């Protein structure tokens, strides 16, 4: 706004004359600098003016100096042109011709400047509006010739400007609208539901897509309710799909390098490999586990169909795609683009043009009138990725193994239904395709694949089995009752046909299935392997289905022609059959509370059918969520969300950086007096989590306490015990230092009596020493080893009574917490982070980047005594940067004053910007030096940071997710009494109040 206004003003002031003063510096005339020229003014005429002046003045003879200005040459020179302003009177004393010429030239120049100012139209009004009333005529703006002739030229220019944009009606005409949409899709990819979303959502541009962030209506709680009670729909089509094709063992051999058995599943998992279940895992750079994380993915194998080649889909977040694609290409040595696929886009464009031709013949009349009719021929709605270069190949082949990697992003749509009723929505919306043995229209390719398929009795029976299982889904009370990741392939009819007249909520009819053995069988056995087969794997069929979709217009036309309005439209053989894939999402699996919360179904569709499935879903009463809702969903599930919660992968770092800049911007926008002073609050980095520094500091602490018995630390007594514990030399020392119960000591004795273990430890320590040097290059890792996490999780449990803990430990098959067990962990992972969740004990609402701290012993004592005790307070810190900032400010002020003074006295002096810009980044309230030891900066030792925190509607209290340092966590757990295990303190960045929270690790 203001920018535009300034521009307007600059344009207006461009021709206004600026003040003309004499050159200020004595001496030879400095070139033009002294005169305040209009910055954007007509430089040419000004220069001319000045040059005239110079020539006149310098041409003057020097005699006058002697006569009138004996004091100095400078004045004499300056005074030479004085006759210019009082021509007649002073003229007796000097030769007249010079005086007159300067006089005349000065006037002439001024006249010029003034003329220029006057001639320019000063107001913002149009020409005909500036005319006096009596000269106005009707319809002057329309017909230029009604204006006086002298103004016609200007008016013509104005009119041309206006007619640049077409009228709204023309813009909204379908063909122009599509062209406009296509133009806008070139930069950022639009999902197929974009228009629908754009009308109802706050849209954001992220990762090269236009995505709905959150609904514009108030729906925070409603979306949560939909997730828990009904169904929340989300368009996940922006997730990227990479397809790997090749021999199974070749694929597996290489894929084993980029994932690890430690983290849970691998690509080789038997049930996933058969194609029965979807798997999810974390990818690492080849052979680099546990460093160099690439990101989380989900994968689906195509069920075996007899042929040697297997197909594998890897689905990932778009932020992670480039890294993964590069790594996969490197692993499989797929460097050259595959040539077979290049002609494909060309053929499609030809077909597109053909189709457009058909369209054109329909609407030719209008097209002919349109001036740009010829040009507008290739206007076709973009389906899929609009930013792709049609002549670039998006698949790569390996010469040695014949493995093909193809990028199928935006080729396959993916919707996610979350909530217990999502399968009743599915069963109501989708109807299994009817069998068809005759081709409806021999000219088109519509459904010819389906007809072919129906001739095969085996495939027909498979289809029937699939549809039978699909029908049975309605009898389930929640999708979480299915085994996690179940895949069901299906071929369905056009969902637009059975659209209800009104939006209704899909509700299951349980009575129908009360005593159904089949449902029970489905519970127990899950979906059989062969039912996972779907035609969506076949690219040709997908293309056929995409191209032969009946347009919305035609469908509506057919509806209109029904004999009984509003009756069911039966398309018969013309009805499209669409292959889809249904994949169950397991929901919350880890932890004890709310099992199966947030489970649902993912539906995979061939592209082009997005809206055809979307609207019927909407008509079944689902609620639609955006990115924010997805974030909340994963928050309540307590799972990390890509890419926010993967600080060790590239995309996560990028995300953190962007978040920091945006938060800093937001902070700077506040008036300085209203900002939180984070230095005083003891928050070192309120906008970003310094994971590297955190792990490094903890490592340093551990080392320091291992080497020195009395390290300098805020908790000397704690550290002393720790110091003992880290010296794994004598068992007696361990015994003394151990605050554990007698049982623990017993177990410890048993373990320590075995000398073998100890020596192992020593070896481990040595290895660690060697490894440490190599580790220093990489900053930190996130611990994802399932075994270790299980162990940690068991250790985190508080034990009210000992038996419970023992039972739990025996159940999990875990060892008791002794240094023999955790020392090797520490050694092998000196700089690791652990994903934890925290739920607040009493008051408090955690925020982003809240600090997780270790409670002091007094705090725990106080907590057990006082029921209303909410948590200790952090003492106020001193702002050590305050006087620095103030000094800078004063300096700046002074300089400014000096500058203005200098400007007044000496216009051409340039303000020295360098010194002011030097300290630009020093902001009051932010830590501006390099961070000190962040763990011991505050009164409570820092353990980690919260990456997401909010009041949890699901749990009914504040909940947070975050990372803590593994070293710190072990240190804390080891020193805490048994019944207070896992208690930590949380402090939000802008507060001094600590709150108690329970730390949990869910595996």
């Amino acid at each position, binding site marked *: 706004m203001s920018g535009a206004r300034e521009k307007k003003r600059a344009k207006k002031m*461009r021709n206004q004359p600026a003040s003309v*003063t004499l050159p200020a510096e004595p001496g030879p005339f400095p070139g033009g600098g002294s005169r305040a020229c209009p910055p954007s003014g007509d430089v040419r005429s000004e220069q001319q003016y000045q040059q005239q002046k110079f020539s006149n003045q310098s041409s003057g003879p020097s005699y006058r100096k002697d006569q009138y200005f004996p004091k100095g040459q400078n004045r004499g020179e300056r005074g030479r042109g004085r006759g210019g302003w009082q021509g007649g009177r002073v003229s007796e004393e000097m030769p007249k011709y010079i005086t007159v010429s300067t006089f005349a030239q*000065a006037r*002439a120049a001024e006249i010029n400047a003034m003329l220029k100012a006057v001639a320019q139209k000063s107001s913002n009004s149009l020409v005909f509006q500036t005319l006096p009333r009596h000269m106005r005529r009707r319809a002057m703006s329309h017909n230029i010739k009604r204006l006086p002739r002298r103004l016609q030229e200007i008016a013509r220019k104005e009119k041309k400007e206006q007619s640049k944009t077409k009228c709204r009606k023309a813009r909204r005409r379908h063909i122009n609208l599509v062209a406009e949409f296509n133009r806008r899709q070139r930069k950022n990819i639009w999902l197929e539901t974009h228009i629908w979303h754009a009308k109802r959502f706050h849209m954001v541009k992220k990762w090269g897509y236009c995505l709905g962030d959150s609904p514009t209506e108030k729906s925070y709680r409603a979306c949560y309710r939909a997730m828990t009670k009904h169904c929340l729909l989300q368009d996940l089509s922006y997730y990227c799909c990479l397809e790997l094709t090749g021999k199974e063992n070749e694929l597996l051999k290489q894929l084993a390098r980029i994932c690890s058995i430690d983290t849970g599943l691998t690509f080789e998992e038997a049930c996933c490999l058969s194609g029965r279940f979807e798997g999810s895992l974390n990818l690492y750079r080849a052979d680099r586990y546990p460093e160099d994380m690439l990101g989380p993915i989900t994968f689906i194998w195509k069920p075996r169909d007899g042929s040697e080649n297997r197909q594998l889909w890897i689905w990932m977040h778009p932020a992670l795609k480039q890294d993964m694609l590069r790594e996969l290409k490197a692993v499989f040595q797929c460097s050259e683009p595959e040539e077979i696929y290049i002609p494909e886009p060309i053929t499609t464009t030809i077909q597109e043009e053909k189709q457009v031709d058909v369209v054109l013949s329909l609407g030719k009349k209008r097209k002919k009138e349109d001036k740009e009719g010829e040009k507008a021929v290739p206007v076709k709605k973009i389906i899929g990725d609009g930013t792709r270069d049609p002549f670039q190949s998006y698949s790569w082949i390996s010469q040695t193994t014949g493995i093909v990697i193809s990028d199928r992003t935006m080729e396959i749509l993916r919707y996610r239904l979350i909530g217990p009723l999502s399968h009743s929505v599915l069963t109501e919306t989708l109807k299994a395709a009817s069998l068809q043995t005759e081709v409806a229209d021999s000219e088109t390719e519509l459904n010819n694949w389906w007809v072919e398929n129906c001739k095969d009795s085996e495939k027909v029976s498979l289809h029937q089995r699939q549809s039978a299982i699909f029908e049975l889904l309605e009898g389930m009370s929640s999708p979480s009752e299915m085994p996690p990741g179940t895949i069901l392939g299906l071929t369905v009819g056009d969902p637009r046909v059975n659209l209800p007249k009104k939006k209704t909520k899909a509700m299951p009819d349980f009575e129908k299935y009360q005593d159904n053995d089949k449902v029970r069988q489905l519970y127990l056995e899950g979906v059989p392997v062969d039912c996972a087969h779907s035609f969506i794997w076949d690219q040709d069929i997908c293309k056929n289905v995409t191209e032969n979709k009946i347009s919305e217009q035609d469908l509506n036309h057919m509806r209109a022609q029904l004999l009984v309005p509003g009756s069911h439209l039966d398309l018969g053989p013309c009805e499209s059959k669409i292959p889809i894939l249904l994949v169950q999402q397991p929901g919350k699996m880890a932890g004890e509370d709310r099992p199966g919360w947030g489970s649902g179904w993912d539906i995979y569709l061939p592209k082009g059918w997005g809206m055809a499935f979307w609207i019927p879903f909407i008509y079944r009463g689902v609620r639609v969520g955006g990115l924010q809702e997805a974030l909340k969903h994963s928050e309540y599930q307590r799972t990390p969300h890509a890419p926010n919660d993967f600080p060790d992968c590239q995309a996560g770092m990028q995300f953190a950086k962007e978040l920091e800049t945006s938060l800093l911007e937001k902070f700077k926008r506040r008036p300085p007096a209203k900002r939180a002073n984070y230095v005083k609050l003891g928050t070192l980095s309120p906008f970003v989590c310094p994971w590297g520094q955190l792990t490094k500091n903890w490592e340093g602490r551990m080392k320091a306490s291992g080497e020195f018995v009395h390290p300098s630390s805020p908790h000397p007594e704690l550290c002393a015990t720790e110091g003992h514990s880290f010296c794994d030399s004598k068992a007696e020392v361990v015994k003394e230092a151990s605050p554990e119960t007698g049982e623990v000591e017993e177990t410890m004795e048993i373990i320590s009596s075995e000398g073998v273990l100890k020596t192992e430890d020593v070896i481990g320590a040595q290895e660690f020493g060697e490894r440490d040097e190599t580790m220093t290059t990489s900053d930190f890792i996130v611990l994802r080893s399932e075994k270790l996490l299980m162990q940690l999780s068991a250790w985190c449990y508080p034990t009210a009574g000992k038996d419970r803990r023992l039972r739990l430990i025996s159940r999990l098959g875990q060892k008791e917490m002794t240094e023999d067990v955790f020392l090797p962990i520490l050694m092998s992972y000196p700089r690791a982070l652990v994903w934890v969740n925290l739920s607040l004990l009493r008051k408090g609402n955690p925020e982003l980047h809240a600090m997780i701290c270790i409670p002091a012993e007094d705090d725990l004592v106080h907590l057990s005594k006082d029921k209303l005790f909410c948590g200790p307070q952090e003492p106020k810190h001193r702002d050590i940067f305050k006087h620095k900032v103030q000094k800078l400010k004063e300096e700046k002020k002074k300089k400014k004053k000096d500058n203005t003074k200098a400007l007044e006295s000496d216009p051409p002096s340039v303000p020295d910007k360098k010194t002011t810009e030097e300290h630009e980044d020093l902001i009051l309230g932010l830590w501006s030096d390099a961070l000190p030891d962040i763990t011991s900066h505050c009164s409570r030792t820092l353990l980690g940071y919260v990456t997401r925190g909010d009041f949890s509607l699901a749990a009914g209290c504040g909940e947070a997710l975050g990372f803590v340092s593994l070293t710190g966590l072990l240190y804390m757990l080891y020193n805490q009494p048994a019944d207070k295990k896992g208690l930590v303190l949380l402090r939000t960045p802008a507060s001094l109040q600590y709150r108690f929270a329970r730390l949990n690790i869910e595996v």
Partner: protein
Amino acid sequence: MVRFKNRYVLCEVVSEDPRCRQCIEDRAVGLAVRDAVGRVHGDYGLACCSISFTVKYLNAYTGTVLLRCRKDSYRLLCSALPFVRQLESRNQRYPCSLNTLHVGGTIRTCQKFLIQYNRRQLLMLLQNCTNEEERRCIQKSLLSCSLTEEHSQSGDEEDDDGPE
């Protein structure tokens, strides 16, 4: 729309001393006028005149000065202008006086008046000139000013076409 109405006073600095020209600058002129108003009308008058008082334009070579003040108090200003006796700048002061040429409601009218006034001056000079050289000079400058006007207009058009 309601706006604050101003009066623009176009005056000419008259001085015996040619060195006075170097004192003709925004601050010096403004101070001198303010001082005169203060002397003549006292604090009240000074306060009245100070509202939105500025030197909008000045030309040291021709001695033209354009002052702005509120419409309510322009009489105070105009009556004080003859009492301006000197201009002071950089510790140098030169005696001079202000000769009011025109009082207008907009800058535009003042500019128009200034064009007219300057033309008249030039023509007068042309009539009064005594030798041939002089006559030639004045004619040249007279012609130049009218010529450049057209030039500048054409330049204007080019400018306008440029960004669009």
